[in-house]
């Protein structure tokens, strides 16, 4: 598993994907937090990192499928999947290696935004007047959400051997689970069920964790979403047999 992880990370670094992803994420988020008139913190006047955590998921929705679209689709197209699957790896090791490599990249694109935290805490009046627990919770939420999106991307990539199909599929599934389900729950036909439907979506759990209250229920939700997606991937890979 470690050798797959290293191979994938090397591939990201060699192919510029890593730099592009981290760069685009940071530039996009940075512009929205500090420059663009509607969303920037300086005009807003409150020391809050809200823009990062409300816009981050939408940026991830495009960036993460771009990271993962290659992982299995390209291996299937070029036939190297046969090489990989005839080396002494379990399918689960291959999947986990690829997932962790993608997740690693997501983690490192979020990491530099910690600078925003320090800038904001200096800007606060009085200094350090910041909702630190809320921000820690939001970071945990964002990272977990990145994990779910990565797992979705890996699954989409295993379903096809075309990278573009994989990208669009992943972006759609991410969107569906993030805000789609919540929107569905809002339709006025479910009555009492609406609560349970929205619980299936990511947004409810993400919002709850962002308040700074890291509830076990939410963490379990994110981890089980990742597990389910990766197990579906394993099922998909097993179909070749």
């Amino acid at each position, binding site marked *: 598993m470690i050798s797959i992880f*290293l191979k994938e990370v090397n591939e990201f670094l060699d192919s510029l994907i890593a730099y592009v992803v981290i760069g685009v994420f940071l530039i996009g988020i940075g512009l929205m937090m500090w420059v663009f008139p509607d969303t920037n913190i300086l005009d807003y006047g409150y020391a809050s990192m809200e823009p990062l955590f409300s816009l981050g998921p939408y940026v991830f929705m495009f960036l993460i499928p771009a990271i993962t679209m290659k992982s299995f689709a390209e291996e299937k197209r070029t036939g190297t999947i046969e090489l990989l699957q005839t080396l002494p790896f379990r399918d689960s090791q291959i999947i986990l290696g690829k997932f962790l490599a993608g997740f690693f990249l997501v983690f490192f694109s979020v990491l530099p935004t910690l600078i925003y935290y320090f800038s904001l805490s200096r800007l606060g009046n009085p200094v350090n007047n910041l909702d630190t627990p809320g921000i820690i919770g939001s970071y945990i939420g964002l990272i977990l959400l990145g994990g779910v999106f990565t797992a979705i991307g890996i699954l989409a990539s295993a379903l096809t051997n075309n990278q573009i199909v994989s990208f669009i599929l992943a972006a759609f599934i991410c969107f569906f689970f993030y805000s789609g389900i919540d929107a569905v729950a809002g339709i006025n036909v479910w009555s009492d069920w609406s609560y349970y439907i929205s619980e299936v979506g990511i947004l409810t759990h993400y919002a709850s964790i962002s308040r700074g209250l890291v509830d076990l229920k939410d963490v379990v939700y994110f981890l089980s979403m990742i597990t389910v997606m990766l197990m579906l991937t394993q099922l998909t890979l097993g179909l070749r047999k």
Partner: protein
Amino acid sequence: MSVSIQNLTKIFGEQKAVNNISFEAKEGVITGFLGPNGAGKSTTMKMATGYISPTSGTVLINEIDVTREPLKVKTITGYLPEHNPLYLDMYVREFLRFVASAYGLKSSKKRVEEIIELVGLQRERSKRLSDLSKGYRQRVGLAKSLIHDPEVLILDEPTSGLDPNQILEIRQVIKNISLDKTVILSTHIMQEVEAICDHVVIIDKGDLVANDKLSVLKEGLNEGNGIIMEFEIPVDRKIFSEAGFEPVDFGKNAFLIESDRSDLRAELLRITSEHDLPLVSLTKSQKSLEEIFHRLTQNTEA
């Protein structure tokens, strides 16, 4: 050490790709696995390496069932897939180190350099795989399947796409390493089989049509020795038919004489000298493996 394939069947949808074939490949012997395109060679090899699983039947590699313990089998098997897929963005050393780490090899650096020498990649060792020619990529593929010193080697068309010199070199490499290994190699180049294989398995449309030693296979089809006689000038065939033979025209001024008797050469020579005929050559007509192959794999076509 051996590979034992027992009643192996693979069905894709409605198509029987491999139909109940059984054969064995022994240690120290190179087994040639032949068949026309689409006969099921690659499918069989994919099942033998655990990449796909059989619909029914078993593959035992050193007595280990591939379906039951795929990881164990993969660590003792070297496999060169058809079309030799490689990570073209990687460098030769990087790729081989990745493979070495996949096998969990200790002192992988040293092993990588060793294997590079073995397959003759010294000059290309710092290049990117996408910059290598097909022949060198094939060597990288071979290096990949040899790096962990496997006991069983399964090679799917190892020499396809190589130039004649490279073919000879790769064959030599395979032959050298085959001494203490079990090697199965698929090909549709008949000269290759005659050059390096000891045992031949032929399949056609998923069915096993031959499974024998190369020498036995050739002998079996050469019953009723034929002799080809070539003369300098046209010769009346009556001379031979009077002696009880049935000469058939075989090119210019030449006859093919077939008979059930073992060796006719001495007798034919006697007749020739009696009539003072200008004989240019006298050869035994050997049926080449190509003919055998052709005959065995055309039968089922109808």
